[in-house]
């Protein structure tokens, strides 16, 4: 198998020549997935914390559902979002199908449960550790929510990164709702799927390597920021 050698060579050539199509695809991938993570974090962090801190009927069911939805199959999410955004569907008039916005919506649905479920765990652990202290200061669950989210921010980075990892790696949802249209909705993963379907395995693997390097870079940056912040607090 010299496909692996060819893959490194293909990836190297693409990166060194700053291939215009590649930069466009990478840019759109980052735009879609980072926007989706941002929105999913806005929903998922407070949602997870609220489930951790408040006691309400059906709470156990919500916890189980959040955990189960961490494993939502991207193709199913894509199909549901397609049916909603299709001209024949309820939101068809918006004309969002086959746009980056549709891809962001699908990814938000896909990763909000991941961020919420992981946040719930983090906040619940913190709460059981600090409940007495916080209560003695007169802080009930409502006040504790923001305090604990802030307190747990370094652990929560991991939850958000898990969401980003899922968003940037999935192909099933963005393929269906984005349509993999050249220069419009083609991202790293759908470009890889396309090259596989053309039988150009080396180029596909090369794109995969670039995706891996990108996501390592983002995770590395997040790690460094966390380390620096921890040092400053120590």
């Amino acid at each position, binding site marked *: 198998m010299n496909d692996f050698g060819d893959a490194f060579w293909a990836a190297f050539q693409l990166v060194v020549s700053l291939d215009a199509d590649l930069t466009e695809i990478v840019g759109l991938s980052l735009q879609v997935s980072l926007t989706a993570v*941002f929105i999913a974090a806005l929903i998922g962090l407070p949602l997870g914390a609220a489930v951790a801190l408040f006691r309400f009927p059906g709470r156990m069911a919500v916890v189980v559902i959040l955990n189960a939805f961490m494993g939502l199959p991207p193709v199913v999410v894509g199909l549901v979002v397609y049916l909603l955004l299709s*001209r024949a569907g309820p939101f068809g008039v918006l*004309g969002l199908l086959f746009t980056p*916005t549709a891809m962001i919506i699908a990814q938000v649905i896909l990763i909000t449960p991941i961020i919420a479920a992981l946040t719930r765990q983090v906040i619940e652990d913190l709460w059981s550790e600090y409940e007495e202290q916080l209560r003695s200061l007169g802080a009930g669950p409502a006040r504790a929510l923001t305090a604990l989210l802030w307190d747990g921010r370094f652990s929560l980075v991991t939850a958000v990164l898990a969401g980003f990892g899922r968003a940037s790696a999935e192909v099933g949802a963005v393929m269906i709702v984005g349509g993999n249209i050249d220069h419009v909705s083609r991202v790293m993963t759908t470009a890889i799927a396309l090259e596989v*379907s053309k*039988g150009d*395995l080396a180029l596909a693997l090369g794109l995969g390597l670039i995706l891996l390097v990108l996501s390592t870079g983002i995770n590395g940056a997040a790690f460094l920021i966390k380390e620096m912040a921890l040092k400053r607090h120590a």
Partner: protein
Amino acid sequence: MNRNLGTALTLALMIASAAAAAGERFITVASTTSTRNSGLYDYLLPKFQAATGIAVRVVAVGTGQAIRLARNGDADVLLVHHRTSEEQFVADGHGVERFDVMYNDFVLVGPKTDPAGVKGGGDAAAALKTIAASKSPFASRGDDSGTHKKELGLWRTAGVDIAAESGTWYRETGSGMGATLNTASAMNAYALTDRGTWLKFANKADLGILVEGDKRLFNPYGAILVNPAKHPHVKAKDGRIFIDWLISKDGQRLIGSYQLKGQQAFFPNAKAMN
């Protein structure tokens, strides 16, 4: 907090710029993986855009799925290759009219060692019958695409009850042409493919063309404007411009001039040559 605000603003800008880019004049065409993978659109569409200022966004899926997209009104023009389904689409009122655009042909590919011994035959159905008798592995699209429908038709002609063989030597991949050829190439299986995808396909391994030239392997492509009476948002004017251009003298000449590895990949056959 300021930093968060900055991030939010950056993101808002990114979304806004994406929306601005989406302001261009475009139509959406539901088409097939075979035409996309052949590279024809990369060759043709920039020339169409230069001539008319209309960008064409191609969603390439199997013919079955492309027709469903068009039926839901999610495309302006349908460009696929299964005449019976296309005529049904128009008869059901989903499309305005079907126009011949071009054709190429299907070929039967398989391992060069040819365990079933079908090489060189000119009768596709007879070849399939021989493959079935020898129970040699056959990779099928199995995805309701134009190629899959064609293949099922050939099995019927050959008198083979193929549904009964599924999962044994007959393997339905349920995926696109390229993915199916990847599978065939890994299993050394026979497969039916359109010539365009085959010429461009880079992972042939030990596969080669075994049967070609049968009249039954004719593969015509048709273009249909999705009915604006059913879906008022369909960009009928620009969609019509696209179809008219495809079947115009210029469009037809360009289709005929597209070459893959030194071979003509598509043959123009529009009736209304003006």
